[in-house]
């Protein structure tokens, strides 16, 4: 069994769907932070069989929970201070997401207008459906 040490301050993202940790690393732009990151792939899980875990040692305010909730709101976010879990955060689907996904509609203005952010708005919370702010194209689950 691989052992990764405790972190003093930061967050542990648990119950990440196996194989998705690098996507999350990318979306949270962890490559741009000068901090310690442990990526644990295919860890054993009673609940999920296999799961990924991300441990990040950094200021906890640096985490973009909206993006994380959009990617997978089943992820458990453990906030760590002084080496202990001080909070487990619930993830709520964000009402709006900016520049996380791109509109795939070839007729959408985002396909030609320079510098235009790709903005998606939560259209149906229960079905987790997002639509492009400009053309209302549905974001498909399979693209996640």
């Amino acid at each position: 069994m691989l052992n990764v040490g405790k972190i003093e301050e930061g967050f542990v993202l648990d119950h990440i769907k196996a194989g998705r940790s690098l996507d999350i690393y990318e979306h949270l732009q962890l490559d741009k932070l000068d901090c310690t990151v442990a990526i644990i792939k295919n860890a054993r899980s009673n609940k999920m069989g296999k799961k990924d875990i991300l441990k990040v040692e950094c200021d906890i305010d640096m985490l973009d929970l909206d993006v994380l909730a959009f990617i997978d709101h089943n992820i458990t976010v453990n906030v760590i201070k002084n080496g202990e879990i001080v909070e487990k955060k619930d993830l709520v689907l964000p009402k709006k997401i900016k520049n996380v996904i791109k509109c795939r509609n070839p007729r959408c203005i985002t396909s030609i207008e320079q510098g235009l952010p790709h903005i998606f708005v939560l259209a149906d919370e229960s079905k987790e459906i997002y639509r492009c702010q400009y053309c209302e194209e549905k974001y498909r689950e399979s693209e996640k």
Partner: protein
Amino acid sequence: MRHLMSPLDFDTKELDELFDLARDIEVNPEKYAHACDGKILATCFYEPSTRTRLSFESAMTRLGGRVIGFSDANSSSAAKGESVSDTIRVISCYADICAMRHPKEGAPMVAADKSLIPVINAGDGGHQHPTQTLTDLLTIRNLKGRLDHFTIGLCGDLKFGRTVHSLIHALVRYEGIRFLFISPEELRVPDYITDMLREKNIPFEEVIRLEDVMPELDLLYMTRVQKERFFNEEDYVRLKDFYILTPAKMELAKKDMLVLHPLPRVNEISVEVDEDPRAAYFKQAQYGVYVRMALILTLLGLTNQ
């Protein structure tokens, strides 16, 4: 400052006020002949649409205002690669209000975000065409006397037809509306619309044959199968003649049913139907000018003059 991006930008009370104003313009045109003296409308048409552009130009001219603009992207700075955001910033310096048509969906919304003057969406790709919807609603209200409690059949290209999408969004706010979608399988109404109708518990049915539902309709909204919405010629040729309204089909309909069409017609309504008193599509074009006049006055804040 207000823009018009979607027919939903105005609530039903505001629409009533707009339609009352359009009615007053129709009855008392001289009262409004100088209402927009000194004002300029910019018609920014990135794709050709003679009818909608001329309707806007007619509306502004009848209000005493003037019109500047371009009628296709090749004769504008877009051909040089200028963004919509930059174009509207410049147009804001030249005009008091702008009507924009663009082949890309959402382009008028991008313009509205950066604009210093009211922007009217005059059609964006296959997405929305709110002023056509206002025209349709005014036509129904004037000729039927109400905007609630009827069965409407929408026939033809329901997939790419933006006039259809905008009209459905507008009508769901009125009580007792039942939709019958009549289209070939390939051109069915998009799922986001049927999802929305299910969610709001609004009755609708999808059928293939126009004849099957003719007797049930209070209104029939015909649309053209537009060549420019297809990716290949073969699909267009195969589908374009699928639904043609003829006097024989009209015989199945109620005596007071109305036929609407956003125009231009190609051959989906045979010319013999034009003589039928239930054919309302040319009156609809006339109402289009009145409603655009009312809209220009409303967005410019000139309704109390």
